[in-house]
């Protein structure tokens, strides 16, 4: 059925700031997911004609049965859009917007926690999954997608990919597809400083996913997501894990991010992350081109 996104997913879009505005909706539709409504945060221009416009997310959900949010608002409006999505009862939120201020993300994460921990008007039955900021989203090839991943490189199968960056997720998927190895799901978390959903949150879902046989992790510099993932793999993951950790040559202490603040590397960070994942039983590969052969051995 896929993790997070499938054929029953109905997407509500919050703003579209990319040049290729209608393109996002087209990609989701090509992937098999209906884009049913849109809301323009902070009264922005009605830019995309791909779905009917609603005044509020609550209206849109009531009228269209939307069950997932795709946020591509301006950085100044992204946090509000994510919180409006939570308020409207949506439990899968993909934030494409990059460069969301850290203080805003702190607010969003607290808002999400408040709405799941306390029963009340914002009570959610499902755990809220928030990918981003700067996430390409989540795709289950052949079933659906919330996000902007390049549908062409994916093919249905039994390998799950979880990455911090959409470009490397696509590169890994393309390499697997080329070798005839399909994917069960592909999820992109975030390379930002303050992140609501980490690798470890996703690993539990993939372990439980009956369609996934092998898990591919693509890590990155900064933060401790890979260490937490290693501890979790040791404890709770039975499926084979292949990990690629680019960034061992990233100069420490320098923010290398493409957009605004991004976690920077510590000395020897990637070596330590690789060692932790290896000790937990993961196979470490040193390039996207090595992923497919490593996965093929484990299928």
């Amino acid at each position, binding site marked *: 059925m896929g993790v997070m996104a499938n054929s029953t997913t109905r997407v509500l879009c919050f703003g579209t700031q990319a040049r290729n505005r209608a393109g996002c909706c087209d990609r989701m539709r090509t992937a098999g997911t209906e884009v049913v409504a849109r809301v323009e945060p902070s009264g922005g221009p009605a830019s995309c004609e791909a779905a009917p416009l609603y005044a509020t997310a609550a209206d849109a959900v009531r009228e269209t049965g939307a069950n997932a949010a795709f946020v591509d608002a301006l950085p100044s409006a992204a946090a509000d859009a994510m919180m409006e999505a939570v308020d409207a009862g949506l439990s899968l939120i993909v934030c494409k917007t990059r460069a969301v201020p850290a203080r805003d993300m702190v607010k969003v994460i607290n808002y999400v926690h408040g709405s799941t921990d306390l029963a009340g008007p914002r009570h959610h039955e499902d755990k809220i999954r928030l990918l981003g900021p700067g996430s390409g989203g989540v795709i289950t090839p052949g079933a659906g997608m919330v996000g902007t991943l390049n549908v062409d490189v994916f093919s249905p199968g039994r390998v799950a990919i979880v990455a911090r960056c959409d470009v490397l997720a696509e590169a890994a998927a393309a390499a697997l597809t080329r070798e005839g190895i399909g994917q069960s799901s592909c999820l992109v978390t975030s390379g930002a*400083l303050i992140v609501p959903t980490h690798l470890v949150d996703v690993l539990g879902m993939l372990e439980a996913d009956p369609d996934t046989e092998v898990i591919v992790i693509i890590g990155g510099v900064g933060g401790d997501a890979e260490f937490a993932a290693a501890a979790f793999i040791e404890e709770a993951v039975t499926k084979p894990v292949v990990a690629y950790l680019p960034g061992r040559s990233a100069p420490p202490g320098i923010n290398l991010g493409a957009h605004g603040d991004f976690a920077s590397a510590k000395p020897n960070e990637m070596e330590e992350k690789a060692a932790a994942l290896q000790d937990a039983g993961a196979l470490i590969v040193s390039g996207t081109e090595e992923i497919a052969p490593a996965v093929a051995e484990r299928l």
Partner: protein
Amino acid sequence: MRIHEYQSKQILSDFGVPVPPGKVATDPDEAAEIFAGLPGDAAVVKPQSYGFIPEGGRGESLARSAEEAAALARQMIGKRFGRDPLCRRPVTKVLLEQYVQAESSLYLAVVMDPSLVAPVMLASGAVPQHEPGAMPTEAVSREVIDPRFGTLSFQWRKVTAALGLDRSMVPQVTAVASGLYRAFIECECIEAEIGELGLTAERELVALEARMRFDTNALFRHHEIEALRDPAEFGETENTLREKWMRYVALAGRVGCVMTATGSALVMLDHLADVGARPGGILYLAGEESAEKAAYGITCLLREESFRAVIVEVPRDPEFAGRVVSGIRLALGDQATGKRVVVLAASDAARAAATGLGEVTDVLSAARSASEAAAAVGKS
């Protein structure tokens, strides 16, 4: 985003944190003049440079006369500080401030903790040993501040104790720590640090050493912070690119990289390291960038004198790839660069877009992967 120490102290002072009286000089004569105007009979002279990290007296010096102040300023101005002197700019300013005799030195900082998703106040009764420019990880007490409630009164008593001070100091600590915290929150910092908080014989607290770093993503609502950016701290390439709001990371090597995502930049850096080449800077092209802007960016890197080669990544998205390839064409069309240009097209879509580029010029190499691109560049 970083700022100078004197700017950090000015902000902290605005939030009620006591700092020594001081002023910035850009030449030795001005330094002598400022010395004469400062209270007390001695002054500390400190170079103002983003790369300069005070490590217990190195680089900062005591002046007991106007002549000494001028001599110290003369020594410091023009010097380069920092881990990687190649991407650090020569010092253009020095801070002169009244010398404050401290009985003991304490440490206080606020950082954003990504795993707790909350600000944390770090406090210690001594200045902890830590990596230059980084936050200490040990030997400090951590007071987590719940972002929903902000600081609570009892936390100031805990911070006072963590600083090794007795209850009589709670009012002074509250003034300094709450000022530091409010500055951190209101200016949207990632880190705000009083690296040396002096305790004087009169039992007063003074911030002797301060450093602030801001959330770049929040600058759109902090034009007052953006205005503190000192262009003298950046190279010409970086400043030229910033004029067009393009993201550039200056590094110390000789290979320029034009990338479309952080992930591909990390991969490129690893492969460059494998062949012994060092990246000199990474320019990021955003997905909505026009061909003209891409050309502008690539041209800036081709003009950077310290570079011997430039790698340009063609992205997977066909439309974006088309604009990047047009950008390469435009950038190479009107000039002889003398630099090797490597076009990295790792996907089929990128290769399709890049077809025909080879006819433009003979300095071009085509690479199908980051490792091929690194090999084409070769060792620095």
